[in-house]
């Protein structure tokens, strides 16, 4: 038998219908929806007189626009409220499970999928959100889709798709202390560029990936899309199975053992061919900081802001010039000399327990610097929030001058009140530093949670390797 990649195995087991020269119809095992990209899909469905085919395989949550402050107060953003109401109504009418903003399981869609065990190895999973690649950490084929495709999946529980090319990303060796999953993925994007993975599904491997916790693997897969790859995966192993066991939607007892036996087959066969391979050495990766307006504009904390003339390509020169102007940075400035106004630790990239524990350890007994106007901690889910509170992390953060908030997408996208004001600079653990992403004319630097925490204490970027980073998972 021809050796297959993990992607090919999952693909092959989900083909419902295929004709030569045409995209295949593939089955979707789990469909996650949220308030932002689903109302038009339900409206389209209704207009055509169609029904949700598998409400039991569809899960809804409110996350993009939810307030991270007191939710017993009325929602003052009327447009957001209309979206919440629409989601509630659509779920009620179609029988889709909804974790609304008051549910104790509410959280960012890509956090609660794995947390509740909705996400499982070998599945296909889609959501109208590009960071759906997160779920690939479980050996799940997961990708973001547009609203028309959301409508298609609601109606058919299938997707029309062509086979992707495959990209193998190997990170060899051991991570130095203080270097996190976030630094690994930023270094990968820095290497391949933000369009480098276009048309590909990525599979991550190598010792540095294998040794990551599930939280870390999710961080890596989450940002696959920032390198252009619509999906990114890690083959499931004992770390994966241990994480899943006992989670609400995961099979139990004998059924769990049978599932694990199946999941163990989900690995790329020896000799299977990838269309492209990229290799990195973990030892050479330093903590990363973005300096520009896309995640590929990234460098080491020990480096300096680049000069447009450092780039050969004319388009890159122009892009760098425009990015530096937007970011108000001068070429040659040491990264550690860049002051920060606000710190955001949150988002589907970095708001899990590992992230919060590591950040809390670093700020314990210290206080945010005087020049920091706001330091936000936004747990990815209410489940994470409650566990963190059990561990006393909230107390550590608030004593250090951070605000401890309720779960949601928050300042990663700024659709609620958590907006980065114009011309202010953030150290943010989120995934996108696009112009205006966190707020109009705001300036985002993407970093790991420990790097963000350290920047909050120092008031500017610092190399966390010089600090006590023993808590980094």
């Amino acid at each position: 038998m021809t050796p297959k990649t993990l992607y090919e195995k999952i693909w092959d087991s989900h083909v419902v219908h295929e004709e030569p020269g045409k995209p295949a119809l593939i089955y979707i095992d789990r469909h996650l929806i949220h308030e932002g990209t689903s109302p038009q899909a339900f409206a389209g469905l209704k207009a055509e007189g169609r029904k949700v085919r598998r409400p039991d395989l569809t899960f809804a949550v409110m996350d993009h626009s939810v307030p991270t402050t007191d939710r017993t107060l009325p929602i003052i953003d009327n447009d957001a409220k209309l979206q919440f109401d629409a989601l509630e109504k659509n779920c009620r009418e179609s029988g889709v499970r909804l974790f609304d903003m008051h549910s104790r399981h509410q959280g960012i869609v890509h956090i609660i999928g794995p947390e509740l065990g909705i996400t499982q190895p070998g599945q296909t999973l889609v959501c109208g959100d590009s960071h759906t690649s997160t779920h690939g950490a479980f050996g799940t084929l997961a990708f973001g889709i547009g609203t028309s495709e959301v409508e298609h999946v609601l109606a058919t529980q299938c997707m029309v798709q062509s086979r992707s090319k495959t990209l193998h990303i190997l990170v060899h060796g051991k991570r130095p202390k203080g270097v996190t999953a976030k630094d690994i993925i930023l270094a990968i994007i820095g290497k391949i560029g933000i369009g480098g993975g276009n048309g590909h599904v990525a599979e991550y491997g190598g010792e540095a990936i294998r040794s990551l916790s599930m939280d870390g693997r999710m961080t890596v897969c989450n940002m696959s899309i920032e390198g252009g790859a619509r999906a990114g995966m890690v083959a499931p192993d004992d770390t994966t199975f241990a994480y899943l066991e006992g989670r609400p939607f995961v099979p139990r007892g004998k059924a769990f053992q049978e599932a694990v036996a199946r999941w163990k087959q989900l690995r790329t066969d020896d000799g299977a061919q990838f269309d492209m391979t990229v290799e990195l050495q973990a030892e050479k990766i330093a903590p990363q900081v973005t300096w520009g307006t896309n995640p590929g504009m990234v460098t080491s904390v020990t480096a300096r802001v680049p000069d447009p003339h450092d780039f050969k390509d004319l388009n890159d020169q122009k892009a760098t010039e425009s990015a530096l102007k937007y970011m108000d940075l001068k070429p040659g400035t040491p990264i550690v000399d860049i002051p920060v106004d606000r710190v955001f630790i949150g988002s589907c990239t970095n708001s899990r327990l590992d992230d919060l524990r590591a950040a809390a350890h670093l700020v314990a007994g210290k206080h945010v610097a005087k020049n920091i106007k706001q330091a936000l901690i936004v747990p990815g889910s209410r489940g994470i929030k409650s566990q963190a509170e059990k561990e006393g992390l909230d107390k550590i953060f608030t004593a250090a001058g951070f605000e401890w908030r309720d779960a949601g997408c928050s300042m990663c996208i700024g659709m609620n009140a958590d907006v980065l004001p114009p011309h202010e600079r953030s150290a943010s653990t989120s995934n996108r530093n696009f112009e205006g992403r966190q707020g109009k004319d705001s300036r985002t630097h993407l970093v790991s949670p420990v790097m963000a925490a350290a920047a909050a204490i120092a008031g500017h970027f610092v190399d966390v390797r010089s600090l006590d980073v023993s808590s980094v998972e």
Partner: protein
Amino acid sequence: MEPFNTHTGLVAPLDRVNVDTDQMVPKQFLKALTREGFGRILFYDWRYLPGEMPNPEFVLNYPRYKGASVLLARANFGCGSSREHAPWGVKDYGFRVIIAPSYADIFYNNCFKNGILPATLSEEQVEELFQRTEKEEGYSLSVDLPSQTISDEHGLRYKFEIVPSRKEVLLKGLDDIGTSLQHAAAIDAYEKAHAATATMYDPVDVKYYSNGR
């Protein structure tokens, strides 16, 4: 969906690589309930000054590009967020065709759901079109999907590649869902065959999933 066959129109050049969908439709406009009206806010932060005054420095506000329906762009166009609001905006603004050396996957896919042709040419060809657009006021291009060609009035003629199935979707204005539902029997059969391993474990403790305070 509106079928696409041929189109001739004024070209507007957007000379930037890696244009992301956050720029096309910023987050504050993602709270809509319908697919309409996104043309007005397309490229909002670039296009408008405070008070929604048109920014005279933004290329789409140059009088010479008023009424453009062909958008000339650079590599990796449409990267980032999956928001379909971006192609809704592109279409509603009046663009029927985008020409670029490459596109981000999700955006590319979303174009076909909305009757927009995202044509791919080489970096060199795109550069040539940028130069011609810059040089000649009123420069327009004719795009012929059946023959997969882009041509101007001066004899330039480029062939572009497109997957035959995607071409068919645009030419016929096909409704994907309708087409897929023709395979309802295959979907039923798939579900039946995989029922044993696809069991949804419905946990007792999240039975009251909503409002479970």
